[in-house]
């Protein structure tokens, strides 16, 4: 038995070493994928019922058309099987490139690999995949930096003390923990700030509203709520308004217009803008440059979030930040 395990391990190790060597060889030669041959760019994103993902399709299409491409947009609705179908359609369509906000870090590897094997370059936006070397770019908002940045503002708004609750996103989602950990990286340095409730509201507004109602009844002493995204923050804010609790300091993350409206009204402390419009434009530009022969310097690229509070909220509209 032991021998068998060792054998498997040795084979696996050899496999990894070989792949490593082959990949190093690949980078040195810097051979670029040719694209499928047509002039079509596929933009595949989660459901556009969320304005964040809608922005990806709208901004991506505009940029690609400006650069002379034909554009086809699809939503995979966070279903990896559906996503794979769209990737296969792109291959059949001889797409020049694919811009994708993927349906899962592990589940999407297969689709991206298929495109790669068909010579079609994929440029990932917003979410990473757990594989390097098969997508040309992975451009994501720095969620860790964004969470820490808005947590700093929240700690100030709380005047460094008090009890608070946290609404987590979908617990299977990487970003749920990246955001939560980085909120706490800032907040937990103050022993005067105490978390008395932590629940998941699964990124959902209605669920956040209901959970907040329940938390306010069980823990009326709280003066703050930190939320993993703006959708939940807006649900929590509305629940606080309806309960007559205008003393509660709330933050979210995304930079949605709905959150911006609450921030303007002083009902929310702030949010961190993921510059998704800028990220999408970068991806389309990099696709265009790549097809013309220049690959981006790095595959994984982080774009800073911008902490949004009442001081600068007027600069925010439709996920675009414009300094006025």
């Amino acid at each position, binding site marked *: 038995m032991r021998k068998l*395990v060792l054998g*498997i391990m040795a*084979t*696996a190790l*050899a*496999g*990894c070493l*070989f*792949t490593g*060597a*082959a990949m190093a*060889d690949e980078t040195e030669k810097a051979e670029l994928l040719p694209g499928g041959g047509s002039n079509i760019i596929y933009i595949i994103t989660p459901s556009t019922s969320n304005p964040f993902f809608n922005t990806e399709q709208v901004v991506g299409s505009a940029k690609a058309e400006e650069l002379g491409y034909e554009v086809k947009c699809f939503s995979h609705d966070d279903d990896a099987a559906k996503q794979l179908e769209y990737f296969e359609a792109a291959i059949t369509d001889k797409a020049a490139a694919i811009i994708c906000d993927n349906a899962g870090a592990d589940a999407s590897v297969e689709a991206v690999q298929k495109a790669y094997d068909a010579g079609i370059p994929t440029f990932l936006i917003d979410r*990473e995949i757990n594989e390097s070397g098969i997508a040309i770019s992975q451009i*994501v908002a*720095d*969620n*860790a*930096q964004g969470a*820490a*940045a808005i947590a*700093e503002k929240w*700690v100030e708004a709380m005047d*460094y*003390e008090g009890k608070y609750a946290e609404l987590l996103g979908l617990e299977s989602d990487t970003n749920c*923990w*990246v955001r939560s*950990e*980085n909120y706490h*990286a*800032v907040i937990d*340095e*103050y022993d*005067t700030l105490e978390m008395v409730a932590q629940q998941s509201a699964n990124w959902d507004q209605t669920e956040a509203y209901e959970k907040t109602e329940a938390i306010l009844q069980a823990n009326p002493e709280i003066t703050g709520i930190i939320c993993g995204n703006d959708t939940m923050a807006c649900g929590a804010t509305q629940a606080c308004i309806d309960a007559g609790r205008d003393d509660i300091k709330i933050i979210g993350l995304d930079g949605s217009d709905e959150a911006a409206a609450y921030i303007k009204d002083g009902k929310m402390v702030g949010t961190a803008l993921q510059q998704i419009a800028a990220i999408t434009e970068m991806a389309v530009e990099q696709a265009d440059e790549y097809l013309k022969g220049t690959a981006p310097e*790095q595959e*994984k690229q*982080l774009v800073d979030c911008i902490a949004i509070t009442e*001081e600068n909220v007027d600069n925010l509209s439709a996920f675009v930040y414009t300094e006025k």
Partner: protein
Amino acid sequence: MKRKLLLMLAGVMTALCVTGCVKIIDKGTEGQYTGETEFDAASNSGGDWEKVVAEITENAVDLSGQAEEGIDKVCAVSASGKVKEYESKANGKKNALILEVEGCDDTVKVQIGSIYSGTDVRDIQTIKNFESFTNQTEWSQYAKALNAQVDSQVVAPLSIDDSVVGKTVTLVGAASASGGEITITPVSMTIE
């Protein structure tokens, strides 16, 4: 042709890697199997600190010469000025010095801990970049670890208290500006 064969072979073996055997490993014991121990930002930053200080010192621009242009991005600065105010927040855990820097109209604030905000020190160094780390969280822990070095190597040895007001501070650090205020995280500092 040979390369293609190699690639194919590698592909098959990787597939074996992925699908060949599955073993559930208890959280926290991965290192025993992979040889990869848990990411330790502190030990990771310790070895870099001197290089980071050297790089920031070399790139530092005199803040007093930046009065007209201001600073729009995070940058390395050197500055010297009289302490106007010793600012203390969060029951003395978040402190700062407000400096009077000649030729600089903005409020100049020097973070002196023990809690530090931001990632400026990390962001202006080039010893390590995001690709040196596995993910965003490690990258962000690295920033925190560098800030911890700021505290232990630069600030704590000076034992600063409110008697510092009126004295002259000379420093090099990472600076960023927001709303008419320049915040500096020092990487070297003297007080006279």
